[in-house]
């Protein structure tokens, strides 16, 4: 298949060989699961259980709230022992509302073992089931998948792209999924094609995964609408807009979604989860996570229940050092975790533990304007210009020359010879701009409230005056009446 131009990008060392040939293992069921009510983009789930309640595996713990939201389910059977604010898997270490589940080891489930056929259902029904299963984008973005699928009902879509890129170093969970469960993934894709009412799906797999390519090609033979495409190995191939351009030659206009172009992109693991949700009514309660890094003794690809603490994963794989950086995701875009007492959530595709050799704290030097960052940027931005303006505090002009289009892929920071923390500056500036926008919104709201108060006070004054005038008029009328009576009585005597 003809591929279009790939712009920019870098070629970091993959380290895939550490875990790509290791089959998926099941992590032993932990005794406690810490399941956050917000594991997705949008509004958090509304808690539906209480402390002391017994739950079965797959039971709803929190209902979705609002249009962009997803429900949360129990990853195993057991008792709810607490509902509290627990550390979120986020660099800030701030807390999020979490349901603590003590597992009873029985793992009693609510879902079927006999598969149902989804092809008799209407697309809306399928989308509802996907939503009820709490499925979100498993590539890391965690956007509710039902919302995306539903766009197929409301807009004209012509292509479904399945992202099997996995361009981050160390991560091999999607690779193993495609190697071992290719038929289920293809089935999930078929279900999505049926929901979107289209006949064209492209599965993009990077060239460094030859076995996965082979397995998926074999499995896709039963479904001629699915084409498996080999794409070059380059970071960030997994950026969905880049994939769209490479495969279709079309670009998503700024400010629009891929659906406006007639394309929807989903991750392979999401396709697998959709297969499980629609065929077996099984909600999203587990996912495959790669545990790797040079500080890990035995790298693994494990199937983990949502809510498992990261410390359990580290104990299972073993650490060979006490001085390390814990990263959720890959080393390029992953979030550094404050410590290992945080739960695995739906968007966690890997835990990478890096020793200080691999992730040293570098000192940065002056920019030498070598423009390697410009060559590396896949979006076509000018990192060196943006960072100069951000350092001076001019966030607005940095935004105007392209900060608002930055995807945070960190290709620029990766190549910078002066070790300037470019992505850190960009994230900082994005935060500042959000702050300023919030201040402006607040100011406008304040103006409206102050104006409303002035109007209210003016109305009160007015009504007081009118009441006073009315009373005065009444007193004058009474006085006149009295005078009349007195006159009358005078006249009559």
């Amino acid at each position, binding site marked *: 298949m003809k591929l279009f131009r790939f712009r920019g990008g870098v070629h970091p060392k993959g380290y895939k060989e550490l875990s790509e040939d290791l089959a998926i293992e099941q992590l032993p069921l932990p005794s406690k699961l810490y399941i956050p009510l917000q594991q997705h983009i949008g509004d958090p789930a509304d808690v539906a259980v209480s402390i002391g309640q017994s739950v079965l595996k797959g039971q709803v713990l929190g209902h979705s709230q609002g249009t962009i939201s997803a429900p949360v389910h129990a990853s195993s059977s057991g008792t709810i022992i607490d509902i509290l604010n627990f550390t979120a898997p986020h660099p800030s270490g701030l807390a999020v509302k979490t349901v603590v589940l003590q597992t009873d080891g029985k793992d009693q489930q609510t879902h079927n073992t006999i598969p149902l056929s989804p092809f008799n259902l209407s697309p809306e029904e399928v989308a509802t089931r996907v939503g009820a299963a709490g499925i979100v984008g498993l590539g890391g973005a965690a956007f509710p998948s039902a919302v995306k699928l539903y766009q197929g009902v409301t807009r004209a879509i012509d292509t479904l792209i399945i992202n099997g890129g996995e361009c981050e170093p160390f991560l091999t969970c999607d690779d193993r999924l495609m190697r071992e469960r290719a038929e289920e993934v293809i089935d999930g894709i078929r279900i999505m094609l049926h929901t979107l009412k289209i006949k064209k799906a492209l599965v993009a797999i990077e060239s460094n995964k030859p076995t996965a390519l082979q397995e998926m090609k074999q499995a896709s033979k039963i479904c001629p609408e699915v084409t498996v495409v080999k794409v070059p190995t380059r970071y960030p191939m997994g950026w969905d807009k880049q994939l769209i351009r490479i495969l279709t030659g079309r670009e998503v206009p*700024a400010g629009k979604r891929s659906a406006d172009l007639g394309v929807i992109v989903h991750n392979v693991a999401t396709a697998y989860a959709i297969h499980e949700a629609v065929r077996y009514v099984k909600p999203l309660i587990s996912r495959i996570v790669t545990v790797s890094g040079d500080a890990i003794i035995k790298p693994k690809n494990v199937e983990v229940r949502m809510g498992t603490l990261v410390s359990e994963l580290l104990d299972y794989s073993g650490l060979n050092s006490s001085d390390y950086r814990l990263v959720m995701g890959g*080393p390029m875009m992953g979030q550094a975790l404050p410590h290992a007492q945080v739960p695995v959530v739906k968007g966690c595709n890997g835990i990478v533990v890096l020793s200080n050799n691999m*992730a040293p704290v*570098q000192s940065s030097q*002056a920019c030498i304007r070598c423009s390697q960052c*410009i060559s590396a940027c896949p979006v076509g931005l000018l990192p060196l210009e943006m960072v100069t303006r951000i350092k001076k505090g001019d966030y607005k002009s940095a935004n105007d020359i392209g900060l608002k289009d930055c995807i945070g892929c960190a290709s620029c920071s*990766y190549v910078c010879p002066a070790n300037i923390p470019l992505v850190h500056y960009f994230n900082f500036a994005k935060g500042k701009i959000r702050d300023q926008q919030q201040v402006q919104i607040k100011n406008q709201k304040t103006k409206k409230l102050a104006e409303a108060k002035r109007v209210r006070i003016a109305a009160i004054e007015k009504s007081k005056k009118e009441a006073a005038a009315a009373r005065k008029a009444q007193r004058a009328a009474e006085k006149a009446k009295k005078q009349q009576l007195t006159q009358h009585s005078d006249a009559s005597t």
Partner: protein
Amino acid sequence: MKLAPHSAPHTHSGNAVSRVMLHVIIALLPATIFGIYIFGLPALNLLLITIISCLIAEAISLRIANKPITCHLLDGSALLTGLLLALSLPPWAPWWIGVLGGFFAMIVGKHIFGGLGQNVFNPAMLARVALLISFPLEMTTWVDIKPLFTPDAPGFIESLQITFLGIPNLDAISSASLMGHAKTELSLDRSLSDSLTSIDYSLTSTSLGIVAGSIGETSSILLLLGGIYLLVKRIISWHIPLTMIATIVVLASLFHFIDSERYTDPLFHIFSGGIMLGAFFIATDLVTSPNTKLGQIIFAIGIGVLVYVIRTWGGYPEGIGFAVLLMNAMTPLIDHYIKPRIYGRNRRGNPMATPSQND
């Protein structure tokens, strides 16, 4: 106390500023060593004096600016500037030319703008041009080659005398550089074929560098090899060197075709004078050249045109210094107007039109 969180990325390519500088210095070494060989010990003295002056000037500037001295000196940028400057000076120039040049390059050319990465003009070229305008006599005194280990070559004491006390018997041993000779003869209305024969011009000797000139002017072949090394190591890209040389070749061919007695041929141009040094090492200076590929091509075309114009119709036989400085001044303008197109936006920066859904 909670530590601030680490930001992504948690890995790095291993690229470093000092590595970039080191590769450029390595690329310049063959030409430098050959130049010292053919011009003798005075050239070595001048080279060392220039480099040491650059380092001292940088240290003084860093001290005044309250920046840490050692790590900045070790990043190799002062060393590189000193080397480039020395390569463009007359090999037997007096010591104070080297000192003044070094100080001017570092202080006025780099640190008053704010240090590494902030300068608008190429420091080595700025210093060379300033010296050329201020001391035209010393800066145009060329000597014929006197290779080391030949009886003509000055010994150690003699070389120190030459550097610190001046060249003895100047009239006897000074020689015109190739370009200077050609230009003078043309101004005296003598045709090229006459003037070039009188100076024993041959392409081989010019390209190998066994003719009078500055070190950086002469060994074009070795500099070309150094340039190719930089291209292979991906320190520079082909856009600037190729475009600059191509522009000069095109212009020279055109005019040589029009009048071959008045205008020198393209090969003469690119193998004599500082074109190779300029194309691969000076115009490609990261700080002062444009950021985008298209911008670099425009920059290189500008330099090529200016070099040819200055050489042919200007008052100086060599135009690289002036051409580079003039185009350095244009770099911010080029960078302002030539920016890459952002994904999802058109050239003006506005969102692209959504393609109509007609399928």
